[in-house]
């Protein structure tokens, strides 16, 4: 891409990597938590619900600072992980963690809604046909919530691409490590003559968002056709 400078290109690929990892890694726990919230009856369900939604309500800077306290090299979790060789602070992995945490509530909400739309009587029918709980989930629930999972994943990806406040608080804005597209746009606007860079990155952000939206629309239509809902 000739029209993007090397630093700009670096920000774009970094953002894509961060958002993809954030989405991919949070998807399995996202499905699990959504299932627990939709179908589970256990003490502490309200607490879990609140915890999941916290990043949606808290100022992103607060979330970022809490992440820094917990996952910084001297934080309780970060210290333990550092001994195992996993470092989040001021690395692209930290940017992915921040993006994942911020995107998690959106993903869980979308998946939870689709699980609640599945008729539990279909799951009971599957059980009478010999399917255990895991088999019922894999063969009936999961295929039926696929559109919701895709919607949740795409929402989370878009949110992760745009995450700024928590990321910059937690892992700063280090070119090549943690300077994602939003950080790069912000940095460009801080220096004289940076408008060109900012505008080019804005164009990329808009294009990626539109592509994600179009893809989700296409996939949802394909799934609907397969299930035969008319």
């Amino acid at each position, binding site marked *: 891409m000739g029209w993007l400078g090397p630093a700009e290109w670096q920000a774009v690929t970094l953002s894509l990597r961060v958002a993809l990892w954030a989405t991919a890694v949070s998807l399995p726990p996202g499905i699990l938590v959504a299932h627990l919230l939709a179908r589970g009856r256990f003490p502490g369900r309200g607490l879990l619900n609140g915890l999941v939604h916290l990043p949606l309500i808290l100022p992103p800077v607060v979330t970022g600072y809490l992440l820094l306290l917990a996952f910084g090299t001297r934080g309780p979790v970060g210290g333990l992980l550092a001994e195992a060789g996993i470092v989040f602070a001021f690395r692209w992995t930290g940017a992915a963690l921040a993006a994942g945490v911020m995107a998690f509530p959106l993903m869980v909400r979308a998946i939870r809604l689709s699980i609640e739309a599945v008729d539990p009587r279909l799951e009971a029918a599957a059980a009478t*046909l010999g399917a255990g709980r895991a088999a019922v989930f894999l063969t009936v629930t999961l295929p039926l919530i696929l559109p919701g999972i895709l919607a949740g994943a795409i929402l989370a990806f878009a949110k992760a691409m745009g995450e700024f406040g928590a990321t910059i608080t937690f892992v700063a804005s280090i070119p090549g490590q943690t300077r994602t597209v939003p950080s790069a746009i912000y940095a460009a606007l801080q220096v004289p003559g940076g408008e060109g860079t900012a505008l080019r990155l804005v164009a990329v952000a808009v294009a990626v968002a539109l592509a994600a939206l179009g893809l989700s629309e296409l996939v949802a239509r394909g799934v609907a056709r397969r299930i035969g809902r008319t």
Partner: protein
Amino acid sequence: MTLTVAIRHDFGGFALDVAFAAPAGITVLFGRSGAGKTTIVNAVAGLLRPQGGRIVVAGRTLFDSAAGIFLPPHRRRLGVIFQEGRLFPHLTVRQNLAYGRWFAPPGGPPGEVAEVVAMLGLGPLLDRRPGRLSGGEKQRVAIGRALLARPAIVLADEPLASLDEARKAEILPYFERLRDGVAVPVLYVTHAPAEVARLATTVVALAHGRVTAEGPAAAVLADPAVTPLGAREAGAMVLARVRAHHPDGLTELEAGGAPLFVPALAAPPGTEVRLRIAAHEVILAREKPVGLSALNILAGRVHEVRAGEGPGAMVALDTAAGRLLARITRRSAVAMGLRPGLACHAVIKTVAPAPADLGGGGEPE
């Protein structure tokens, strides 16, 4: 292969306490809505855990409160046919049919799938998804899916209730084939007298969470003491055989040596059919009536006269065709001097064996 059920469950306002055995063939749980039929099916299926009792299918204990046994649904080897079909919308008919087999123990006769597909006429539907099937087609697939799970018992919970009359007529013959051709016991829930008369091998009559009668279909249905839906819906079941088709549009049947005439039946001579003769369609006469438009007159003897609380009385009459029920007024019963052993004639209005109440014969398509 049999099923024995003895369960107790208290819902607060409603208490269920039943015990019965279901031999091979179709055992119909028959009673009004709220009699406890669906609760029993859910208990057998493992979708409800009763407070006490025992459920055994073909020697396997599914539930025993005393021994602390409660098998979850997926380990019970069931074939459940739900009222609303409950087909998996994301799978094709072929995959729906195969679903239970993924979890069933291996084995089973070769060509099993082809046989069930042929029996239910599912061949042209195999590659479709449930969203593109009619109500009757969905129910046929649901029957096939239940059978192909290699179940130890088939449970059918009002499988025809959501269908219109034409679709019911389309599905009923498949249940008859099930009754006559499959060794697995079928527990069938309904409140439709026509379905009971047509399908039941054994009838378990239920009222207010209790079993009021249990036994072979003909005996229970012709018992004037047992009218699970009230006297208005009472009717006996008679087994007959097609003898001949007459050019004037009538079909002659033979039941226990006695001739019966019904509107043209599309079944070859020799075919066995079940007739439901509703009690309110039977008139009694002391002398053999002459100069009457009714074609079907059977000689018999009064077995029992049972007066209800209102003006009506139910009379059980033994004829060559079997025991019939007649619903008459108490005043007539007294005026005619009806008592057990008295010779009597039953006049069955020709309209009585209506097509919806006729079993067997006719091809479904």
